[in-house]
């Protein structure tokens, strides 16, 4: 099994390109955020897919129409750039998969990249249904940081998989983990937005209950997927390591994250706990990120696929 280095190089270029495009989108979202005073978002962005169902809208902006237009334009451009970035990003993963003839999530660099793509795609899907592009900064900032860290500190050259990972379960277990992590990243961003909005510090964000609902809906999609990822991981562990559960640090922290998200769902089902629930959702995301970085890099365990040091 040889590596096609040409494709691998193109993949790396696409990766860098995607980061730059996302960065520009992030800057434009920053402009939108700064310029759009007291506006939820640019309503033009949600023309499609809303099903005629109007979510709660904010009172019309009280800024001058000039800055409002600037905000709307910046927001629109940011979303277009995000779409472009996602396409280049997808190409980067696809090229790497072709270069190494396997799933493109075999080490930490690839895994981080795939999670970010899942997050961006989730975000774009949500944008089609809800007028929330004002949240863009909160979603793209962690994405850009994650991609940047993955692409520099954790970068791993295209290579075949180690024997331990050669199993069809990598396509199932890791894919589920990627999707769940990506969606939960957006949910966490929405909860951060909610917490800032309800503390009165970010009037320009979408309305609080829109953010709360967004976080909840993203989480209830991601939670079963995460549950499935853990179960699939246990099935794989049974075949690979001789036991389905062994309190390996990665397994343990995955379970901790699961418990925290279960806590989120309970808290949200409890009347008058919206802010508490949002905090728990943010904590859940923190545990997920901790599991991704700290446990892979610092704690040693069976999950030594990181491919770094």
């Amino acid at each position, binding site marked *: 099994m040889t590596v096609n280095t040409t494709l691998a190089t193109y993949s790396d270029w696409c990766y860098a390109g995607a980061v730059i495009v996302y960065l520009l989108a992030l800057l434009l979202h920053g402009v939108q955020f700064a310029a759009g005073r007291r506006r939820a978002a640019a309503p033009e962005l949600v023309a499609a897919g809303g099903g005629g169902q109007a979510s709660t809208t904010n009172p019309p902006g009280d800024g001058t129409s000039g800055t409002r237009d600037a905000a709307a334009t910046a927001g629109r451009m940011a979303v277009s750039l995000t779409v472009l970035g996602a396409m280049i990003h997808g190409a980067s993963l696809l090229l790497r998969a072709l270069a190494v003839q396997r799933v493109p999530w075999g080490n930490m660099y690839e895994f981080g990249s795939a999670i970010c793509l899942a997050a961006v795609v989730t975000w774009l899907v949500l944008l089609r249904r809800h007028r929330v592009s004002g949240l863009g900064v909160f979603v793209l900032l962690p994405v850009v940081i994650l991609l940047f860290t993955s692409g520099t500190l954790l970068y791993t050259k295209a290579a075949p998989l180690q024997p331990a990972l050669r199993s069809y379960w990598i396509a199932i277990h890791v894919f589920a983990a990627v999707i769940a992590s990506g969606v939960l990243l957006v949910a966490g961003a929405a909860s951060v937005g909610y917490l800032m909005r309800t503390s009165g510090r970010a009037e320009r964000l979408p309305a609080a209950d829109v953010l709360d609902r967004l976080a909840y809906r993203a989480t209830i999609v991601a939670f079963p997927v995460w549950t499935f990822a853990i179960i699939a991981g246990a099935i794989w562990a049974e075949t690979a390591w001789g036991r389905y559960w062994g309190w390996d640090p990665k397994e343990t922290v995955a379970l901790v994250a699961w418990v925290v998200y279960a*806590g989120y769902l*309970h808290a949200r089902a409890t009347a008058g706990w919206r802010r508490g629930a949002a905090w728990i959702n943010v904590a859940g995301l923190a545990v997920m990120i901790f599991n991704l970085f700290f446990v892979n890099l610092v704690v040693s365990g069976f999950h030594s696929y990181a491919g770094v040091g």
Partner: protein
Amino acid sequence: MNGSPNDVLSGVVASLRNTWRGLTSMRTALILLFLLALGALPGALLPQYSLNAAAVQRYQAEHPTISPLLDRLGFFDVFSAVWFAAIYLLLFVSLVGCLVPRSLDYARGLRARPVATPRNLSRLPHHAAASVTAEPAEVTAAARRLLRGWRTAEAVEPSGAHTVSAERGYLREAGNLVFHFALLALLVTFAVGKLYGYEGQVIVLAGGGQFCNSGLLAYDSFKPGIRVDGTRLDPFCVRMDGFTAEYEPNGQPRSFQADIGYQDAAAFGAGPAGATVGGAAGAWRAATLRVNHPLRLGGARVYLIGHGYAPRFTVTFPDGQQRTSAIQWRSVDTTTLLSEGATKFDPPGVTDPEQRRQRQLAITGLFAPTAFFDGAVLSSSFPAPRDPAVAIDVLRGDLGTESGRGQSIFGVDQSMVESGRLVRVARQNLLLGEQLTLDDGTVVRFDGVQQWVSLQVSHDPAQQWVLLSALCVLAGLGASLSIRRRRFWVRAAPITEAEGGGRTVVEVGGLARTDQAGYGEEFTRLAALVLRGDPEPSRGRPAALARKE
């Protein structure tokens, strides 16, 4: 949200009580969930005895002040600590306390009629109205046809208005109950597996080495469940015929494969004669072990979990007698498989223990599969046995094997060396086939390399039940999170003659009991169908549906 206090007063009281009950127990569950998450963290962040005892000792040596406290609190063995068990047992007690009444409620609710139509539908989160020419009874009949799959009840109010109340999504609660019960089952089956299961590791030399699952002593290390004493293990034998490792040019492993023969319970004649597929009882069957491809035998599974080298030495003693030994050395570098170990010999034909203790031999040092010399210092440049070499010390004297102390098979007893009873008599690098001669004429030859394979045998009688529970957790979760419990009401009221007459005012209202999001589209569709049939809008707002959040 339901805005008619008078006719649902008792309902409000009941639901207040329910809310209070739910709130209190939910809060308990929340706190316990939080504690569970928090309590599991040290298990992931600190080294654990159960996973890596050596790492625990290292940590304790590095942190002498805090370690005794951590140790006493069970932080190095979190998942068997009493306090950890207390958290999850409490959680499950609370779960049972919460599930039993909920299940009863659910069973009662299955027979209950949908809630009567609220007086003021316009206060509901979803609401729409229109006036139509059809009779009230026709409207409700049509609505009921439309609401197939919903549980519906029809009523006629004193004013003459016909109403339909409909409810759907009962499976949500069922899914939720299944989910929580399955969690309980998961815990119980997990525990059963831990009680009755076992896990053992053993190293077998490739090229004919055998392992039989005959008892604890057959293993190098063995972790039995509390109810396992090692006397009634599943009988089977494994013979390691060959082992192949392939590597990428940079030394990264590509594949490991062990070709084995095995005999399972049937081969031992446990079954009726002739039960063995291979013919005669005791026949060996061939199989291949690879990473991710264990051998599954009845109750036990055999895994390929590691490999390494066993350098083979032949010692020719001064009297001409020869002894050959190959024993596993362990790798000190996982990428190049540079290995260390000790191969030990008893002098042949010496029966007097005193004499024997003077003339035992140990060959210790380093083995490199692909030798790379930096001056005289040996290291390895590739994990495959391309150009093997050893850098050895030969020690002679008392190995301390009869001292009663346990000995590592990878080294010599240093106290023997320190006390001068075990003395180094040679130090040399040997390539494959080379030999060295000791002062007494003994010749030590490095004449071969064998590979060893480390196997894990696992047995967990409950694991398929764990899997089943986990799948029920998933199914229950899916149902409970994707199904929405929702209500739909229709009121069709005739317009009196005094008000013009001949028409019917149709009002519909909707309420999702858990999460409003997502019900809107379904409601809109249903409402449009119920309100259809009359072009004339009521109150100037036709099927442009008011929706409150």
